[in-house]
């Protein structure tokens, strides 16, 4: 029993930034734009660190894939309490086409290499909204998965997960090792304070390439076009209730 948890963290454009599409409709503008850790990944890190504080697991390893800047995201995870980091370096065109399939292959390879018992990921990234990485990782490893977790508790060699689904809450019990994806209500992530960020500089971040893990990161997808959502139509003001009803009838809504 290694008691080791892998947490995947993704560097995304900050949630509060207004997204702009490039004039050539190829992608979204990222240069000079504020980036931060995906909010669901923050929740994943917090859950892992809490487990460590309760002495349920021994080590939290933060993993991120991307260019040099991905190290900032790993540092934030280290400042929140992760023990060490792994930066899988992917740059340029490869990074642009990096998606859930490639990440899950990398996570699966790392889970085997690090003999991890648990992988905790955010349920989805706020930039691509794929909601696939956790599920694919579990499938590649043939591990059980507890997705959209709003509550996780370790019970011996099993994990009890309360999942937030459309119909309400579903409670499942799965074997370890497993993959968990964090939903919004799982916990309240702690703030990575400045002193903790300074202390985190002493923690190690290992560097490697996907090839070192024997992972092929060629994408099966091609982005054809990126467009902004249609502009919201201006509302129409009406004078009387009769006007409102007739307008609704016109639009076929009543």
């Amino acid at each position, binding site marked *: 029993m290694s008691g080791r948890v892998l947490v995947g963290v993704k560097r995304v454009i900050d*949630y*509060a930034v207004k997204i702009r599409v490039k004039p050539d409709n190829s992608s979204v503008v990222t240069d000079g734009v504020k980036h931060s850790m995906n909010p669901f990944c923050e929740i994943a890190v917090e859950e892992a660190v809490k487990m460590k504080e309760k002495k349920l697991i021994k080590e939290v390893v933060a993993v991120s894939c991307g260019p040099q800047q991905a190290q900032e995201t790993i540092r934030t995870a280290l400042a929140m309490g992760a023990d060490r980091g792994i930066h899988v370096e992917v740059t340029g065109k490869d990074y642009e086409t990096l998606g859930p399939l490639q990440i899950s292959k990398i996570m699966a390879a790392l889970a085997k290499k690090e003999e991890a018992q648990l992988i905790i990921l955010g349920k989805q990234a*706020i930039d691509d909204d794929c909601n696939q990485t956790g599920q694919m990782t579990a499938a590649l490893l043939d591990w059980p998965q507890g997705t959209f977790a709003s509550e996780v508790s370790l019970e011996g060699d099993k994990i009890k997960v309360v999942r937030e689904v459309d119909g309400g809450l579903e409670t499942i019990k799965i074997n370890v090792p497993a993959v968990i994806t964090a939903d*919004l*209500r799982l916990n309240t992530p702690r*703030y990575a304070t*400045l*002193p903790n960020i300074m202390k985190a500089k002493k923690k190690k971040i290992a560097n490697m390439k996907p090839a070192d893990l024997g992972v092929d990161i060629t994408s099966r997808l091609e982005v054809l076009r990126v467009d902004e959502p249609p502009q919201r139509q201006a509302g129409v003001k009406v004078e009387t209730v009769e006007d409102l009803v007739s307008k609704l009838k016109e639009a076929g809504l009543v």
Partner: protein
Amino acid sequence: MANPFRGQVIKLYRTLLYLGRDYPQGSAYFKERLKSAFMKNKDVTDPDKIQKLVARGNCLIKELEAMCFLRKYQVMKKKYCQTKK
């Protein structure tokens, strides 16, 4: 500024500046207000007063963390956790 407090005040300023990057109403606005608030008190020499101001600053750190988190939580909840009617 009395020497023993210089370190504390600088540390407080740096921490608040760092937190201000996530300020909901804009980090530039926050930075301005922060700087003028600190400059306003730069000639205070009474150790008691300095202690009180530093304590207020530390409370502000907690308030800011809560505010930034709440804003993020509200936006995330609206986008990702709407219950279907």
